[in-house]
């Protein structure tokens, strides 16, 4: 139920064609919304958006009553890109897990913050900043959270050497 509503809303935002299958996931795929096989992947809806569309996409998810599960990053060093992944889920029995992801160039890792929509994104974004060096534009307090206060390294980058 909620799956279709959210999907349509996100589709409308992206207004692009839907990728045919999930087979080419590891390759850089075009922005779009895709229904994934819950049984094997553990989530229902996978939306890839551009960094500019991120806030709008998260707003849609917020309006549909999702809660923020986590925010994390992935370093795709081969493609010279960083990916930010937002996980959302629901409290009611209309189970639907939504993943919103966006890719940004490694040289200029900036995405807009979503703390204005989800206050709980604060720590998650700080943590992602710690680990990947991704800057969240507009974040109120982007200082290291889990790493020491003076940390200037980003341990989860693939080219990080201890």
């Amino acid at each position: 139920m909620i799956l279709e509503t959210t999907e349509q809303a996100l589709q409308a935002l992206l207004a692009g064609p839907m990728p045919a299958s999930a087979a080419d996931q590891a390759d850089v795929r075009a922005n779009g919304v895709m229904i994934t096989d819950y049984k094997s992947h553990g989530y229902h809806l996978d939306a890839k958006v551009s960094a500019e569309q991120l806030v709008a996409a998260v707003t849609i998810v917020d309006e549909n009553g999702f809660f923020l599960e986590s925010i994390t990053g992935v370093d795709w060093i081969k493609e010279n890109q960083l990916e930010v992944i937002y996980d959302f889920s629901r409290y009611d029995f209309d189970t639907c897990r939504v993943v919103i992801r966006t890719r940004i160039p490694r040289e200029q890792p900036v995405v807009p913050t979503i703390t204005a929509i989800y206050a709980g994104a604060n720590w998650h974004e700080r943590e992602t900043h710690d680990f990947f060096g991704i800057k969240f534009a507009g974040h109120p307090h982007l200082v290291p959270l889990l790493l020491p206060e003076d940390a200037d390294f980003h341990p989860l980058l693939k080219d990080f050497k201890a």
Partner: protein
Amino acid sequence: MSAPIQLRPDETFILNVGPQHPATHGVLRVKMEMDGEYIVKAETVLGYVHRMHEKMGENRTYAQYLPNLSRLDYLGALGYTHGHVLSIERAAGIEVPERAEYIRAITVELNRVASHLFWFGAFVMDLGGFSPLMYAIQDREHILDILEGVTGSRLTYCYYRFGGLYNDVDDEFIEATKRFIPNMRKSLKKYAALVTGNIIFHKRLEGIAPVSAETCRKYGATGPVARGSGINFDVRKNEPYSVYSDFDFDVPVYQEGDSLARYKVRMDEIEQSLRIIEQGLAKLPAGPIMTEKKPKNIKLPVGDFYQAVETARGSFGIRIVSDGDKNAYRLKLRSPTYSNMHLFDETCEGMLIMDALAFMGSLDLVIPEMDR
């Protein structure tokens, strides 16, 4: 030489609660801006036990990563390892024998009871009552004995394997668990009379730190914290995994959202876990505890995989991004207390420090699990 403390009457001061403080149960630091005993602003500082488990997940094979999971939350370790094995089994498409899943459910629930018991004791000790901690530890000790008899360790279990279990349970385990359940029920009655019914305890928690359902949603709070705020959310019911759909149990939900509601949720959950254990023992099927083709050198297909489980503290999620290798390309651990604790900064503003610390206790923090 003594320098006078120079404070204007309207001035606030900074109080560092932690990193070493009896109420933080570990190395957590909360920087509180205080106006007398009232908190004006609080900022939680994390990372004192940060060990970068996620990087270790990238360097180790999936099997080698197993012991790491039990080091996240040392009180309810089995729930976390359960999440890990389930995520790998989901991604690699491994079928688990029913007996193994039943034993997993029984041991996870035993571990949940142990975790809640320890929380109960520590929470009452936060409020100044010491004896309930000792009674709770006595009961918890029985669970640890039972679990040690089957897993070989008392806290940092490494019992589940991809596709099954490390070893089978014996009759001794079943007998001991059956003996334990009625004793635990008796103890629950004792706790209800000694602590839950106590007027001092009630006055300390009733109406303290109400957390609204909307706040829970914005912060992503799960587990007893969300259920104390009237949210009927339990991964075991909402997204049934393992064999939880076979069991008949209730999800305790309280609408008040205060510290007392969170307390009551956990105490009711102990009873529900006992029900699950009882049913699990009654239904425990015979058969193998390991899949026929014992998987070695697991490689996951390319893609993203997510698995959530309900641990004692809330919804624990594990996200694996695989590039087809035998270790993960990226492994993200979504720890429940991380989101639950995030509520604290906002909620405790304007509260008295003693209420704020009671509230912190009611969140059931395990610091290594937050810091990962």
